[in-house]
């Protein structure tokens, strides 16, 4: 809690509908965010029970500097992932961090399961469990509208919710936050669905005087100027993250058609520039971020003869254009936006959905599965078939789609095609085939995300390939991001928030930290996460890479499977050394 030496935790139990609040001094050394959430997950986890058991916890936490400094906008969720069967960790922007901050909580621990669909309202002086029976089955969009109209606090409120995919326990169902942001990855939506929790509305409006205005505001102003006046952040606002489609495609690093290719022949039709020209209508921001990277694209759909049109607006980003674009061979911006719309309404992770469908498309072509199972003729570029297939995944239409709803790794266990089921540690791949970093990064990353350590980015910045250097950089970045995610800085601003800046910011709000402290905090958090993975039965030695990674040339040329396994061993040794060491 800002200005206090404790972390304020709200415990909610959906079975008993009881709440409890604790001010935890012992969590203070974990700063906040992923540090606090990891500790809370570790102590509330029931390793002997099933990942989806009602008793399993879901943790939400804001960071040590949430909202009060520019671009410090994220909330972390931690849980037991139904997709990978191990560490679930996901981040969302929007207004959630601000509302939790001003409702007066650093973290929420949700356990139990409601007997009937419920939603929760949280404010500074009340927590209520409410009836959501009529909301069960509604899309993310519709449930947001209903809660918005029923609950007070507009403008100081955040509404997070699940769609039908979460209710139906699709292993990669997402949680929608404030319409345009998401806890996208690793299936938090399914975990909330298993608890019969449809939505949470949080209102933040408490009085919170600034302690040391002069010092705080000096740092704030400096940061604001650096974020808005310099070029460090401008690419995120301009055409946004999709600007990366063009250079990655040109360099041969854009996964295309289930990674049968790393260059998309229609890349120019789905580039950031194309979206900006044809579809971009608006940009938005998370609370406290003057950058505004959220890009809203619009497309027009003719729903009947006689010039009957509807306009649909959805947010788009690089990873969505990859997963629901190049990876499925979709060659127009309008069609990608249509796929995003379906994924949004049903409440699915766009990345996993696209990559799972990439596998299914190839499996059908190779006769591992039949059209009697897929029901639609899945083929690269066939948008209509994909729209229907996405709907079938969300409702688990038949046995095949029930299995597909458990991810590409599970589907390839059942039907074969492991060599082209594009997952890292059972999490579907991100949009980078840049080199060994893009393989090792998400494989060793604690949550198997490209954002764990940015291995793909190291590929692009490293002048000459060096095994030792690559492994060292990934290891260092993994720990550094544990620290950044305890604040919780949006990783887009990681170049603005260097160590010196972080210390100035935290110390202006009453911390007394040194550079060494930050290093120790990062390592402490990483070790906690690794302990949790261990509790969940994860063993890094069992990891296998899909062969496709070594068949299709990457941006750094053809990759060698042996080298990849060698790098993995090198990384695992580093982890073992760290775990053997006492806490700093």
């Amino acid at each position, binding site marked *: 809690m800002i200005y206090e030496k404790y972390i304020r935790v709200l415990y909610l139990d959906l079975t008993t509908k009881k709440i409890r609040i604790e001010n935890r001094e012992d969590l203070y050394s974990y700063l906040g965010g992923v540090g606090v959430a990891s500790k809370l997950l570790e102590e509330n986890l029931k390793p002997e029970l099933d990942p989806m058991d009602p008793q399993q916890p879901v943790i939400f936490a804001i960071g040590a500097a949430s909202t009060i400094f520019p671009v410090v906008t994220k909330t972390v969720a931690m849980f037991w992932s139904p997709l990978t069967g191990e560490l679930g960790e996901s981040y969302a922007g929007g207004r959630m961090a601000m509302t939790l901050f001003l409702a007066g909580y650093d973290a929420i621990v949700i356990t139990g399961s409601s007997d009937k669909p419920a939603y929760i309202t949280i404010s500074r002086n009340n927590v209520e469990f409410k009836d959501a029976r009529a909301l069960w089955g509604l899309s993310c969009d519709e449930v947001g509208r209903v809660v918005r109209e029923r609950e007070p606090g507009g*403008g100081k409120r955040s509404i997070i919710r699940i769609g039908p995919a979460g209710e139906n326990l699709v292993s990669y169902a997402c949680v929608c936050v404030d319409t345009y942001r998401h806890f996208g990855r690793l299936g938090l939506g399914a975990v909330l669905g298993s608890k019969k929790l449809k939505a949470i509305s949080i209102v933040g409006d408490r009085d919170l005087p*600034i302690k040391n205005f002069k010092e705080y505001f000096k740092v704030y102003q400096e940061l604001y100027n650096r974020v808005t006046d310099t070029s460090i952040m401008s690419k995120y606002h301009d055409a946004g993250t999709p600007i990366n489609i063009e250079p990655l495609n040109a360099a041969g690093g854009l996964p295309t058609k289930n990674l049968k290719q790393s260059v998309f022949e229609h890349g120019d039709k789905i580039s950031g520039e194309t979206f900006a020209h044809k579809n971009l209508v608006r940009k938005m921001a998370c*609370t406290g971020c003057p950058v505004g990277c959220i890009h809203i694209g619009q497309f027009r759909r003719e729903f009947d003869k006689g010039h009957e049109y509807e306009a649909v607006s959805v947010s788009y980003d690089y990873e969505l254009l990859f997963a629901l674009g190049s990876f499925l061979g979709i060659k127009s911006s309008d069609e990608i936006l249509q796929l995003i719309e379906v994924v949004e309404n049903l409440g699915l992770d766009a990345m996993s959905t696209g990559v799972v469908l990439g596998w299914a498309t190839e499996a059908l072509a190779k006769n591992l599965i039949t059209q009697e199972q897929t029901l639609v003729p899945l083929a690269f570029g066939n948008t209509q078939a994909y729209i229907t297939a996405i709907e079938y995944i969300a409702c688990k239409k038949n046995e095949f789609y029930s299995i597909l709803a458990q991810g590409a790794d599970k589907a390839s266990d059942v039907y074969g095609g492991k060599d082209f089921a594009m997952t890292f540690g059972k999490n579907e791949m991100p949009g980078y085939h840049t080199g060994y970093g893009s393989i090792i990064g998400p494989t060793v990353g604690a949550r198997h995300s490209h954002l764990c350590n940015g291995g793909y980015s190291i590929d692009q910045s490293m002048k000459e390939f060096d095994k030792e250097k690559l492994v060292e950089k990934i290891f260092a970045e993994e720990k550094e991001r544990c620290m950044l995610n305890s604040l919780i800085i949006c990783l887009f601003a990681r170049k603005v928030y260097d160590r010196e800046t972080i210390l100035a910011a935290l110390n202006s709000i009453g911390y007394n930290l040194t550079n060494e402290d930050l290093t120790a905090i990062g390592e402490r958090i990483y070790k906690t996460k690794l302990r949790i993975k261990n509790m969940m039965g994860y063993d890094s030695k069992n990891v296998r890479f899909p062969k496709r990674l070594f068949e299709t040339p990457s941006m750094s040329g053809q990759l060698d499977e042996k080298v990849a396994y060698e790098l993995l061993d090198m990384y695992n040794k580093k982890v073992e050394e760290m775990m053997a060491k006492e806490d700093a």
Partner: protein
Amino acid sequence: MPKVLRAVGMNKCIGCFTCMLACAGVNHRNHSISKSAIRVRTSGGLQGKFVSVVCLACKDERACAEACPSGALEKRPGGGVILKKERCIGCRKCESACIVSAVHFDEDENKPIICKHCGVCAKFCPHECLEMEETTNDL
């Protein structure tokens, strides 16, 4: 020449709330956007437009000042009013008198939140939605 705040470019607003955080911080030494004199909100959910609710700097006749029974709201040169806290009894009559709902109320302080037209929000707007406009002195 006196200046007043004009929310001229709200179509460009990205909803970052930095204006509110800056106003609350500078004018009320508070982290809470509830203390801000300018309020940005959406009309009709996030898919709706961003609108700002802030003092329009009425000239000549100021309904809020007229409604005040204790003379706590003085005319500000160029438009709007200045709050004299020591004279305010917290009756909230100014709040209901303002037909654009730009007088917000601070429940903790039991005083209205009155825009001073200081320009801090405009300075911290990254998208040119807010600007300070020179105007004639109407007093």
